[in-house]
């Protein structure tokens, strides 16, 4: 499903004196439908890595190859618009905080995820997803009227709206209490399994990571995340 090779991303140091490596991944692979937890401490480049995998950020060098529909597509070579389009169609993204649009209802937020793919928005699928996350009675509620846990469940439904091949989840339970965190994690796992989607979930919480079939320390794949490098 996903293969990463020699992926490099640097940022300018605050004083502008040098470039600081944040992501330096020699190789990483994820099979179709495979689920993996990436464990890393705060500032270890977890979010930057996910942004690179999603095409939100452009790598300076390396490959991010997706096998989609029998074809390999290296999004690192894509233009920004092509990466946006690819992301909309094939990648679901769950943020640490829900990042729902406050002016839209729960249902509209899920439909919004479908509106940028060029395909017709599937209202019944969006409704089904919200039912699956236990919010069938809150379809017309705006985020401000939902609890944090409910908001994050809407975000989970939105991430799966386009039936993505891969879901990237960035500390999806980080802002939730323990009960809500567990409930949200269960939903992510079960929905990804149902959809046959792969999952890369980054977390600093070992207990959360252990619930996924595979765990990786970020330092194992990202040389820039090694404490000795001091990168963040």
């Amino acid at each position, binding site marked *: 499903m996903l293969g990463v090779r020699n992926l490099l991303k640097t940022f300018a140091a605050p004083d502008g004196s040098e470039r600081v490596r944040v992501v330096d991944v020699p190789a990483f692979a994820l099979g179709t439908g495979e689920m993996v937890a990436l464990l890393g401490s705060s500032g270890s480049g977890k979010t930057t890595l996910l942004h690179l995998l999603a095409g939100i950020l452009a790598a300076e060098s390396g490959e991010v190859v997706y096998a989609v529909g029998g074809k390999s597509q290296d999004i690192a070579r894509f233009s920004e618009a092509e990466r946006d389009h690819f992301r*909309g169609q094939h990648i679901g993204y769950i943020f640490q905080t829900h990042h729902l649009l406050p002016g839209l209802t729960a249902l509209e937020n899920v439909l919004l995820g479908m509106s940028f793919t060029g395909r017709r928005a599937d209202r019944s699928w969006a409704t089904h997803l919200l039912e699956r996350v236990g919010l069938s009675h809150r379809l017309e509620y705006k985020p401000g009227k939902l609890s944090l846990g409910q908001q994050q469940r809407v975000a989970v439904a939105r991430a799966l709206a386009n039936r993505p091949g891969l879901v990237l989840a960035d500390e999806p339970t980080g802002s939730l209490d323990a009960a809500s965190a567990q409930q949200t994690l269960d939903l992510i796992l079960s929905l990804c399994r149902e959809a046959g989607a792969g999952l890369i979930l980054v977390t600093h919480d070992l207990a959360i990571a252990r619930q996924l079939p595979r765990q990786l320390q970020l330092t194992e794949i990202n040389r820039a995340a090694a404490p000795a490098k001091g990168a963040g």
Partner: protein
Amino acid sequence: MNLFELILKQMRQRMLSTVLTCLSILLGMALATSVGIVSREGKSVFAQTDYGFDTLVGPKGSPLQLVLNTIFHIDASPGNIPYRLYEDMATQRPTSADGKPNPFRGLVKWAVPMAVGDSYQGRRIVATTPQLFGVGDQGEALPADKVPTYGGGRAYTFAQGRAFAPNKFEAVIGPEVAKATGLTIGSTFHATHGLPGPNDVPDVHAETWTVVGILNETHTANDRVLFIPLITFYAIFEHESGLEQINQIQQQAGAAGSPPTASAPATKTPAAPEEPEEKAYTLNPDGTITVKLPKDQWEISAILVKSESAATSFQLSFILRNLPEAIGVSPANVMETFFDTFMPKIAMLMLVISTLVTVVAAVSILVSIYNSVAARNREIAIMRALGATKGRILAAVCLEAGLIGLAGGVIGILMGHAFAWAGSIFLQRLLSTGLPWWHFASGELLYLPVVIAVSLLAGLVPALKAYKTPVAENLVG
């Protein structure tokens, strides 16, 4: 949910800002539209070519003032002319009163005198002859070619009653006068000298007129006028004494004295009508009156003249131009000149103002959406993360600006017509003729895309800001 629905939702979220921005566009558009209607349709109302007569004779002075006062019954009368001019034109007598050959002989089809200077409840009184209504001095119907018309070959007709007798205190009133004052057939009224303002003490004449006829609507300013016989105008004591005084002054100053500029001089009298000790007329047994003022002292405000032909019209104008006391003007030419001189400048000024309003409105669109974009960095980043391309975000912001321009523009056009409608009501009250405010012109529809384009252009600045919004930075936290 498509992009359009999303934009509408976001506009609804910022309803106040959207409405205010829309309002500024709307005002510019409404102003431009109403100016367009007034300059376009106003000309057709004021600068009509067919007034039913071709030459308006009045005192030397401003032709525009003469036309406005005589035809539209607005502005002050520019002064008086001798009655004998009317007699020369109307009677076609071989020699004038001074024994010289009548210069107007053979040139005039019909002529109607008008004397102004009095009013009733704010409506102007015009003294004239029954010929205006197609009736001779003996009450007989005039031959068709001698019947005055008010344009389009239409003669005055009566909704009720008849034309006044030429030498009785009778009156014919316009339909709006009847409606506004409640005067009906048989009602009586006293004329007030001049057109007193709200704080003036009205100078009410003692003479009493009886309404004998109410005209049908003509949609001209005459609908707002009370017509009285010319002879009764000289029967008003203050008019008679005033004209006598003017004649004395003229005689003292010699024949070179300029004609008086006041319409109908009068002495100040109390508000209530007061019977003068000496009357300016004698009442005959048959109810008619004979005025004491000699005819050679009579003066009138203007004469409506229908020439025998276009050629005689030119001849008439030439003769009048060489007279010391009068001028002859073509009302159509005067109004056209007025519009061609002033209206383009006024319209241009108003268009400049409306363009400025539109530009200010465009700036307000820019500021409003720019602020909204600045406040929506995270939302834009979320949409980008969900797959929205930069181009789509740019298009969305531009579309929002364009929608504001479209809404403001369309409502502005309608509002402009509403303004013109209000102006039409005002004109209707002033002149008994309104503007065709419902007429849409292609120019208005051309202005709409311009407004939308300006709005889109204004939206481009915030759109570029949205376009450049860094996604990763705004997703963190």
